[in-house]
């Protein structure tokens, strides 16, 4: 098996894990200001309390894996997307400390301030992640020396901004479903009222996004024509997303959440299958694209990293599962809570 392909998959898995896990807590942040009252907001925060920083580690590890396996992609993307990434960092910092600081003091203004920081940080993070993804899908100008040849304003194209909004809608839906699963009583009744709307908004965005892809990304269309077996993956993804309202309607929030996760996984899989073997598509000059061969570390390093992953990933999955198990069930407020 080709190590380059394995690492393409592994990096993809890490970022998909990040989207599934941090996706719901960014979504909870997005919905945070819509719940009224201190009790509801504390329930929201504490529903993600024990797990949010573990979720963020998926981004750190994904970034580390990208750095190690495909240094040229890491260098080109991170230096090219300088301003959006700096804003993303600030947004992530704000929401992280807002979670930690918010409930430490009882004053209204203090809590409102951090509530806003938490919500704004979450929305901005989701938006920027989506915009960055949009540029990756559409392709950015890459120079023959592998450096980014575009501009910041060039990144703010309608397609990418729309994918940003779609990402916000996706995470909000995902977070809403998570909240419906983790809450009870009045808060749950409110959240359950939101979920169908959130699903509706996301599906509308998703349909428009796919149409925009046909317009803005002819290269994607070409690839799908050449690889028709991608279509079933997309189709199964759509079916699974369609399954979410059904599960919610039957009161099976956990199944709805799993469907949401699986839907995200299949969307990322479809993206990976279309994008392969590119890591950063060069538009307008596809010959300059960074791919899993011309941007990779040596096979030796990829092999060493594979050993690290084979030892590390099962451990990580095992205790991540344990921690979700320990904190299963409805969120309760205690003296230890945020």
């Amino acid at each position, binding site marked *: 098996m080709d190590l380059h392909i394995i690492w393409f998959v592994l990096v993809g898995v890490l970022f998909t894990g990040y989207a599934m896990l941090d996706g719901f807590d960014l979504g909870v942040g997005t919905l945070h200001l819509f719940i009224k009252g201190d009790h509801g907001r504390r329930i929201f925060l504490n529903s993600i309390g024990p797990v949010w920083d573990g979720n963020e580690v998926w981004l750190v590890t994904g970034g580390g894996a990208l750095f190690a396996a495909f240094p040229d992609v*890491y260098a080109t993307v991170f230096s090219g997307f300088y301003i959006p990434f700096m804003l993303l960092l600030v947004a992530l910092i704000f929401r992280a400390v807002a979670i930690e600081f918010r409930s430490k003091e009882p004053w209204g203004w203090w809590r409102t301030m951090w509530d806003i920081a938490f919500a704004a940080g979450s929305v901005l993070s989701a938006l920027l992640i989506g915009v960055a993804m949009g540029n990756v899908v559409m392709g950015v100008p890459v120079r023959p020396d592998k450096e980014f040849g575009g501009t910041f304003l060039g990144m703010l194209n309608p397609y990418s901004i729309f994918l940003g909004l779609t990402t916000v809608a996706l995470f909000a839906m995902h977070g809403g479903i998570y909240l419906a699963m983790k809450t009870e009583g009045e808060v749950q009744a409110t959240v359950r009222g939101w979920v169908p709307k959130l699903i509706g908004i996301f599906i509308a965005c998703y349909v428009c996004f796919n149409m925009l892809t046909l317009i803005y990304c002819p290269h994607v269309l070409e690839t799908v024509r050449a690889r028709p077996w991608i279509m079933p993956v997309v189709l199964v993804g759509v079916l699974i997303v369609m399954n979410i309202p059904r599960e919610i309607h039957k009161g099976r929030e956990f199944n709805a959440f799993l469907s949401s996760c699986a839907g995200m996984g299949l969307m990322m899989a479809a993206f990976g299958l279309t994008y392969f073997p590119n890591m950063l598509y060069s538009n307008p000059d596809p010959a300059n694209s960074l791919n899993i061969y011309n941007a990779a570390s040596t096979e030796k390093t990829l092999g060493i990293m594979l050993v690290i992953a084979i030892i590390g990933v099962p451990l990580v999955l095992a205790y991540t599962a344990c921690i979700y198990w*320990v904190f299963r069930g409805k969120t309760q407020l205690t003296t230890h809570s945020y």
Partner: protein
Amino acid sequence: MDVEILSRVQFAFTAAFHYLYPPLSIGLGVSLVVMEGMWLRTGNPLFHNMARFWTRVFALTFAIGVATGIVMEFEFGTNWATYSRFVGDIFGSALAAEGIFAFFLESGFLAVLLFGWNKVGPKLHFFSTCMVCFGAHFSAVWIVVANSWMQTPAGYHLETRAAGQPVVLPEGHAVTGADLGTVRAVVDNFWEMVFNPSSMERLAHVVFGAWMAGAFLVVSISAFYLLRGRHLPFAKASMKVGVAFAIVATMLQMISGDIAARTVVEEQPIKLAAMEGVFETTPGTPMTLFGWVDVKNRTVLGPQMPGLLSVLAWGDASKPVQGLLDLPEDAFLARWHPDAKEADYAALREAYWPPVQATFQFYHIMIIVGTALLGVALLAGLKWFRGTLFRTDTFLRRAFLWVLVLSVLGPQIANQSGWFTAEIGRQPWIVYELLKTSQALSRVVTANQVLLSMILFLLVYALLFAAFIFLLTRKIQHGPEPQDESEEMPESWKRIIRNRAARA
């Protein structure tokens, strides 16, 4: 201002700010293990209160540590893209290993540590505390390994590409501007990379420094309670844990510092000469205790101990320590300046020196503060032994407790100046004698972009720091919450207290 200065200042600022927090996490992590272990062993509710109080302080530092740590990982790519391309094959794997082995462990079990008091039994909770502590140390391992490789690269070769095929470059290849973006360092031997000549010494030095940060934080807050006459049983018990830990950590730090310095003598003689302000190579090299470097006149003003540096470096008072005027050596200059004549070498040397004044001063601040902390810790130990540590009846005793309150700043100052010594002392190199800092920048990032991000970080971090200090102060004023056999404690926890009562 140019991109290089701005990027360096931004990286230094964000790294220094970040580094206020991980040492506290590492040091407090050990304290938490001790306190909770004592609670499980003795069943004394006092230790339970201690563990819970310090866990909350830990949570505060950990959250900021995580948030500011992501910045560091991003900056390698955003600001130092050329560096990332050059070292990705080596540096990246250490970073990824840190994520997989350390951060997941730490953040996962932290959830149980913080929110699991009522959810899991005491043994599993204690296990989680140990894992968090372990994870915090593991993160230090990988990042120090990566940084040490930048100080003393090993287990690699340089390669370039010609017609799509990798070409191995000879050892000692001098990287020029034309090489950037194509030449990269490639791993030969993973373990040689991990155990490069300075990594283990520096790891010990970093970890003991972190222990000191945690220990003196506990000492400081306990001393404050003693002075205020509040939470006395809690303060005394915490103080004992803190002082014992501080003594152990400080003593170990002295030993590890000595070993780390000897490695610098061997591996980075230019850095050592700058740290000590040595210009002339003379037998029986003296050591300057403190002073001012007069770079222009190639001399240092300040009290000197004759021959001491030679003794510390070589264990031999007559063997000279190489001075800056003879460094770097001719062989190195011949490699990097093949066209230069030997007569010109003297003029070329200064370009390979780090900023001597800054290296010298930061190093001496570290030494002076570290030594003072050893004195404070030993004196506190002596007073504990004589039974006067907890008394506030005389002016001198109160004054000493105030010294202990302020002692929390000591390890922070020493840790920061230690890192400044290490990083400034490596200049002009980003990877020692391989790649220059000025060659490592992102080529597409402009000065205005970096200026913008720097202003952003300054504002955000100022706000963050203010909020952190404010909350920490409030937490300290609020103090631990007494909880013996309250309603909230699960049955399995209450049993520990009852078992102890039965034993007594």
